[in-house]
């Protein structure tokens, strides 16, 4: 490997194409630097700096400054800048922004340094953005691990709380285990695809396109199929699909609320994007993929719904209901095997899910007390009376998650259902109906607690619930926008819809 060939390779390094990620990284570093430079009394402004930076990037992204790189590869095939990637950049930036806003609420209740939280948040976001654009196992694994390790820290961020640390440890061990499994799967695939004795073997076996070509040439290779299921196991952990969902409630409960939100939305979104990319890569193995994913989807849907049914800790409830959402999305992934519109449906679902979930998590952060892990449904009693606004936002968010029109969640489910029906997944649809009906029960229980019951509990123990944080203007604005967006997206799909249409 001489200098010239390296230069040829480097000629493909289009740094401008990953400008958002780079800027995000720089912003993260700048935060740390600023903390050192600035006097202590100004440290409280740093989150605002971070959020404004993310907001600026979001605008930057929405204005389409990186649109010129769409449909191109960069970094010698490590990254592919697809239209989906552009959309998902927006998704992750939006998620980061919202996590940051919720973070200000939750962190204010803890005596902990704030800056690092935002630092890691930004790094993880950048990694996620890279993750969904990666077209190469090395890139994918590195980005994934950056995300995961960042999340280990974030999950155990409230380090004074033993529960948070326990959640962090559980997440760490299970995450690392799943990463190892994923890695081993990658290694197997790499080994098989590079095997010179097989037809269609490839020199760059880590490249997903090459791998796809190889798999298409060898549709029933045993080692490859083992590699595929191992990789799938690793991704299934990320998206919390059955049976790799078991960590979810514990970790969600222990993690700080903003991190729970981050896990629930961004991490899951990233996982699904990876799954979509991999499903496309592994499509020659549809004989294996389709039944596995179908069963996984059904089991995930049912288990999530049933698990959440009797849950009374809202964070665990969000976790388990999130599992059932993963089931719906998996249904979309299965349908995507034959119906290209399913991919659009998944994206729409993710956006609807983002808006609704952050609305709910925002309210949760405001309702939660200093003990972040202790958030019971009963704490919501009388919310409608004390703060109708929060109750409304909560109801809209939960309604959207439950798939009740006119919220966006309904449209998301509708698209998934249409795609699934087109793909002929009647069994899965049946399971999905059962799941929706069950889910109505627990979402409704929550809304009922917030809206129907009065604030004085039957035993008169009004002090049992923690004091609620008053809604500041910014929080109110953000929550209001989320609720509004949820409803708007349900009625008018606009740009997003047109983008889905053209898929």
């Amino acid at each position: 490997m001489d200098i010239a060939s390296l230069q040829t390779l480097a000629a493909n390094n289009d740094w401008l194409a990953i400008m958002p990620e780079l800027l995000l990284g720089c912003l993260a570093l700048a935060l740390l630097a600023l903390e050192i430079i600035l006097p202590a009394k100004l440290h409280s402004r740093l989150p605002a700096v971070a959020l404004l930076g993310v907001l600026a990037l979001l605008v930057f992204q929405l204005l389409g400054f990186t649109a010129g790189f769409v449909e191109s590869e960069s970094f010698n095939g490590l990254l592919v800048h697809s239209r989906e990637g552009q959309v998902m950049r927006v998704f992750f930036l939006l998620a980061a922004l919202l996590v940051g806003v919720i973070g200000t609420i939750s962190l204010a209740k803890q005596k902990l340094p704030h800056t690092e939280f935002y630092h890691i948040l930004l790094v993880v976001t950048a990694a996620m953005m890279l993750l969904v654009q990666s077209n190469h196992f090395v890139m994918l694994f590195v980005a994934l691990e950056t995300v995961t390790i960042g999340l280990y820290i974030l999950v155990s961020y409230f380090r004074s709380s033993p529960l948070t640390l326990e959640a962090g440890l559980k997440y760490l061990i299970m995450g690392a285990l799943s990463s190892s499994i994923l890695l081993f799967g990658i290694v197997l695939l790499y080994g098989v695809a590079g095997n010179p004795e097989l037809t269609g073997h490839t020199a760059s076996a880590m490249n997903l396109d090459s791998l796809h070509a190889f798999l298409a040439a060898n549709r029933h290779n045993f080692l490859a199929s083992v590699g595929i299921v191992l990789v799938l196991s690793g991704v299934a952990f990320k998206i919390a699909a059955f049976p790799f969902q078991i960590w979810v409630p514990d970790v969600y409960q222990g993690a700080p609320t903003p991190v729970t939100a981050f896990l629930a939305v961004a991490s899951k979104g990233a996982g699904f994007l990876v799954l979509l990319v991999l499903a496309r890569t592994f499509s020659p193995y549809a004989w294996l993929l389709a039944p596995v994913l179908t069963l996984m989807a059904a089991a995930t849907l049912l288990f999530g719904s049933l698990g959440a049914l009797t849950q009374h800790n809202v964070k665990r409830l969000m976790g388990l209901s999130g599992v059932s959402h993963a089931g719906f999305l998996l249904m979309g992934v299965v349908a995507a095997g034959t119906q290209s519109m399913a991919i659009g449906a998944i994206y729409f679902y993710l956006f609807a899910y983002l808006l609704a979930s952050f609305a709910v998590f925002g309210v949760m952060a405001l309702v939660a007390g200093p003990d972040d892990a202790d958030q019971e449904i009963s704490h919501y009693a009388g919310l409608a009376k004390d703060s109708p606004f929060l109750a409304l936002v909560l109801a809209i968010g939960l309604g959207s998650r439950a798939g009740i029109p006119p919220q966006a969640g309904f449209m998301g489910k509708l698209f998934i259902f249409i795609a699934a029906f087109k793909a002929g997944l009647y069994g899965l649809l049946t399971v999905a109906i059962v799941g929706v009906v069950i889910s109505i029960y627990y979402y409704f229980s929550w809304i009922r607690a917030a809206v129907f019951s009065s604030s004085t509990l039957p035993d008169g123990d009004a002090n049992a619930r923690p004091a609620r944080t008053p809604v500041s203007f910014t929080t109110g604005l953000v929550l209001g926008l989320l609720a509004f967006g949820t409803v708007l997206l349900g009625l008018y799909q606009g740009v997003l819809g047109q983008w889905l249409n053209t898929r």
Partner: protein
Amino acid sequence: MLQHAILILLLPLLSAAVIALFLRRQGGIAAIVSTFTAASIAAIALILALHGGRGENHVDWLTLGTFTLSLGVKFDDLAALMLVIVGIVGLCVHVFSLGYMHDDGAKARYFGGLSIFMFSMIGIVLADNLFMIFIFWELVGFSSWVLINHWHEKTSASDASKKAFITNRVGDFGFLIGIIWCYWANGTVNLTQLGEHHVFSTAIALLLFCGAVGKSAQLPLQVWLPDAMEGPTPVSALIHAATMVAAGIYMLCRIHVLMVPDALTVIMWTGAATALYAACCAIVQSDVKKVLAYSTLSQLGYMVAAFGLGSLVTEENGTKVVIAAGVGAAMFHLTTHAFFKALLFLGSGSVIHGCHHEQNIFKMGGLRTKMPLTFWTFTLGVAAIIGLPGLAGFFSKDAILYLAFANNKAVFAVLAFTAVLTALYMTRVWRITFFGAARSESAAHAHEGGLTLTLPLIVLAVLAVIGGYVGIYPKVFTGVFELIPEAHGADHTTILITSLVVLILGAGSALLFYKPSATDALEERSPGLFRLLASKLWFDEIYQWYLDKVQQRFALLLNFLEQIFLAGFIVRGGAGLVGLFGLGARALHVGKLNVYLYWFLAGVVVLWLFATGVL
């Protein structure tokens, strides 16, 4: 003609609407509005009958698919006759009510109800198709409900109104099926078109007859009519004696072309049985209105039997002529009965009014002198109903007896015997009420009512006297009256003798047997027979048993099953089962890392098995 017909139909509706909307608290004005309307109706009815032409017309009221429901007027002699009866009796009752209901607190509702009734009844009379008849059929049921329920603070009135409506609905159940069947079988329910062409069907005829059974209170749906006497007496006169209950007969006459022999036989025997049954019941009643109610039942049975006797084949100038004699006889009796029964009811109303709402005849007595006008008019009514020669009832009853004699001797026997009983119980009630000494405080202070009470009595008495002479009617009703069977020769003599014997037998035994006293002579002399007759063959008890012990228990059982089995076991149980699964799923989160790691192992193994093709 048609404009008048529409006017006569809509006038009472307008009156009812005005009363309901504006005159709720002005009972006096409401009464005047309603009575004025009744007077207009009577006037227009007479004009229509005497001077208006005959004809029919209709408009489509509702079209859906191939089905068209039209509302229309069929104004022939039959309708004209019925319209005149309704108009005249209605007016009399309205006027009578002015006095009778003078002090009632809910006068507006009462007169509004009367107006609604007039509307509904005229609707039936004018209707040109079965669906339209059914519409107004139901509406008269409703107005009957309103008026029976007038004194709704009494449980008995409330129950009676409910019973009347529901029993009528039972009849209408069959009626409606019959109409619908008739519609699909013939493609039309227009009376004229049916007359031109129709299929022969016993079932349709009998189903349609069900409507008459309910409305005209024939066996076995007769139970509501005696109870309906809970309503104000003028209402009983108008609705439950003269017009509404006769609507069943009228309706049968309207559709007589649809009748087939088998159906007619059933109808005939139903009528005959009702006539006999009711007459028996009437003998032991102590409430003057109940006696009249059973008498009405009995007379309605007469009419139904007459209708069921069907056509008569006579020979005129050597050619055989078939006339629908059943229609003629039934309608003739309907006409005369309307007059004398309304008279009797209003008379009893006058008595009740005079006796301060005492209705028990054994607590009356001696009213002959205290209420002479009422006495004499009532006497004429009694004479008419028992068939005293020369009075209205004599002619119409003779016509029926003759028809029965000609067509079916068994029915003739039954009807003749019924006539004996009629004479018996009418004489009984007449004697006990008006003769002897006053047997109660209220009877002792009885007094004649005002002009509004007496005037209708006089008018109706005149009609009860002359109503039987076909000759006095203008020639406008020939379409009906030419159908009246007339006995000739030997038959004539037989019938005349029969009716005289019947009259003498019945009235004579009553005069001998019943003395004006405080107790029932039959009850004293033959308590067993009295109890049998008073039991009314336990119809009410059987129905009550069915309602309480069968229907209500069945309903409760179904309700129980629904609550326990469906809503409880299946729905709540199902939800509970899902909840158990939920608890199970929740319990799987044991919190131990090791256990969770086994899930991973299991997951990887399962996926491995998939990959290796084991699963």
